[in-house]
């Protein structure tokens, strides 16, 4: 359950932040908002909820007339030219826990938005007051940058303002100037491949045409991982869970790989060729081909289990005497 607008307003008052609030019919755009509070002595803000290719999220909060160029921002963050997109609607609800048209820095009060990075337009500092939605788009509140900072600090963030219109060159000797805004520590979803990779078994030349499809199918059906939690997004309140070393899944993956190779090794041809010796032949091949692969899987499993133990160790509470 995310914070409601009322909880937020109470919190702002508790923090002794000076703000004015105006209720109005639900608005989904800055233009619509302007109709109701445009003349109330505060600058309007536009708030973008963005996502990069590695599923990291950003809120860009700017004055309504500051020019924001996503291509430039993407480069300044070090994401290359086309690295930033508008986040999907679903993410608004899941991560920011606000309705459509209500992106606001105040959404960062929610645990689910812990890893969302915030870029604040330095123009906000130049205004006496600025309007934002407090988690609901039938209210707008205006406050000054100082008040906004106080709020952000209360969520454990360090507010910093950027010149969003700047377009500094980014290259070999000029590192991206906004790179520090890349969120770290978020659970990273494994990158989904653009297309099924044209990969073969490491046996290379011994693999016949029939095998290739079996291997590719096996890979497509069983996505990586004995590590289960890496794929889950944090849902409000829960801190990103430590992936658990799941013995069952691990064994399944080992059996899968072995079975695939086994099936590929036993065919009409190979039976004809090796006859009674087929068993030995297959075992040799399996050992040769799978040894390294299985060892790698085992190492990942071991490292994951160790990490679980390490985490438990550093969080362990000594017995009270």
């Amino acid at each position, binding site marked *: 359950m995310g914070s409601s607008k009322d909880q937020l307003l109470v919190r702002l008052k508790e923090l002794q932040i000076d703000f004015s609030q105006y209720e109005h019919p639900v608005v989904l755009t800055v233009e619509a908002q302007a109709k109701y509070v445009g003349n109330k002595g505060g600058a309007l803000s536009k708030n973008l909820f963005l996502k990069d290719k590695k599923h990291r999220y950003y809120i860009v909060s700017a004055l309504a007339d500051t020019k924001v160029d996503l291509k430039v921002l993407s480069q300044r963050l*070090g994401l290359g030219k086309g690295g930033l997109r508008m986040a999907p609607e679903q993410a608004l609800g899941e991560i920011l826990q606000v309705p459509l048209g209500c992106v606001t820095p105040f959404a960062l009060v929610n645990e689910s938005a812990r890893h969302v990075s915030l870029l604040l337009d330095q123009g906000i500092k130049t205004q006496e007051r600025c309007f934002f939605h407090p988690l609901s788009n039938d209210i707008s509140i205006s406050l000054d940058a100082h008040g906004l900072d106080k709020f952000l600090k209360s969520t454990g963030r360090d507010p910093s303002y950027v010149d969003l219109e700047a377009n500094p060159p980014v*290259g*070999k*000797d000029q*590192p991206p100037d906004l*790179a*520090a805004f*890349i969120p*770290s*520590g978020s*659970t*990273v979803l*494994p*990158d989904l*491949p*653009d*297309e*099924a*990779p*044209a*990969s*073969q078994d*490491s046996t*290379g*030349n011994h693999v016949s045409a029939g095998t290739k499809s079996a291997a590719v199918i096996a890979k497509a059906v069983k996505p*990586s*991982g*004995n*590590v289960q939690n*890496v794929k889950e997004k944090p849902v409000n309140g829960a801190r*990103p869970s*430590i*992936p658990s070393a799941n013995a069952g899944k691990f064994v399944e993956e080992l059996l899968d790989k072995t079975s695939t190779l086994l099936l590929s090794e036993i065919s009409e041809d190979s039976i004809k060729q090796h006859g009674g010796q087929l068993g030995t032949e297959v075992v040799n091949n399996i050992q040769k081909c799978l040894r390294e692969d299985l*060892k*790698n899987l085992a*190492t*990942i499993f*071991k*490292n*994951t289990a*160790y*990490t679980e133990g*390490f*985490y438990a160790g*550093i969080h362990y509470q000594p017995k009270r005497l």
Partner: protein
Amino acid sequence: MEKKEDQQLQQEEEQVVNPWEVSAKDGGKIDYDKLIDKFGCQRLDQSFVDRVQRLTSRPPHVFLRRGVFFAHRDLNEILDAYERGDKFYLYTGRGPSSEALHLGHLIPFMFTKYLQDAFKVPLVIQLTDDEKCMWKNLSVEESQRLARENAKDIIACGFDISKTFIFSDFDYVGGAFYKNMVKVAKCVTYNKVVGIFGFTGEDHIGKVSFPPVQAVPSFPSSFPHLFSSKDDLRCLIPCAIDQDPYFRMTRDVAPRIGYHKPALIESLFFPALQGETGKMSASDPNSAIYVTDSAKDIKFKVNKHAFTGGQESIEKHRQYGANLEVVDIPIKYLNFFLEDDAELEHIKKEYGAGRMLTGEVKKRLIEVLTELVERHRRARAAVTDEMVDAFMAVRPLPNMFD
């Protein structure tokens, strides 16, 4: 016996090889024989490869079989000691200058993982975030962030957490490590360090005082939480040959402060897609295959940018065969990454005779690279921040020699 490299360095330099710049003479190939000669290290010949196979009871790594790791210093002493039952530890590192790692970056790590598994020895990995902060003018925070990000790709190479300690300079320098740094620094004059690394009066003092930081992980006393009772432990450093200057300096200093000289095992440079005039460059995305490249990217880059020795037309190719005198990148890359010796020989023969076309060689390379990158990506997905914390924690490794 090491040669007096100072005199040679003062002579006309045709090719430039140092930790910050690698370029061949006149846009040609790097002359590795000349390099070995100039640096004063030893060629790694077949007898070594056979000996490693005997000692470890497993087939030698593809990089050893193909001469990718081709030079060494004192490897024979390490192997002699190992045979007597005296173990050693491994030390390698990375300068985290960019988030994007390419295959060239992975090479020393892939080889080091093999060494860890084959010899069953512990490993320390240094992330020189301070160096990159200084040389690449990154902020402290940014270089630390990059160090952690790179650590994830390094971990994905498959190191065993119960035998591996990863550390960043900004986090770890101090204590026993710093004491060794001062000991080393006292033994190297300003003139010497200028001679080795080419510093000038315009370079800031951070650069000038950095070399000891990269030198002291070679000494076990720099890691009291790991090697407190083993002051005698030897160190083997797998690295690319451009790092040799740091360790020449270290080997010079070591006996003077009562430590063993670290041994080295050195690799060739991984050529850029466009040809072998130098190293891959992190700033030109088309010069390298990155670990984040998709299968489509790899296919495009190899097909479009790989420099080959194939003839201009199919007819000419069938007639004359490929020109393998020139650096044919697909063959070169297969040399690094295609495990099967027999298949590689076959491809070289057929391609050289003109019976196999450039397109077919490229196709095989694309398969091999895609599988490699896919495997890495899957392993990388399993690495979490908590795992990085665990690898980087200053903790004992009780089973490091098991």
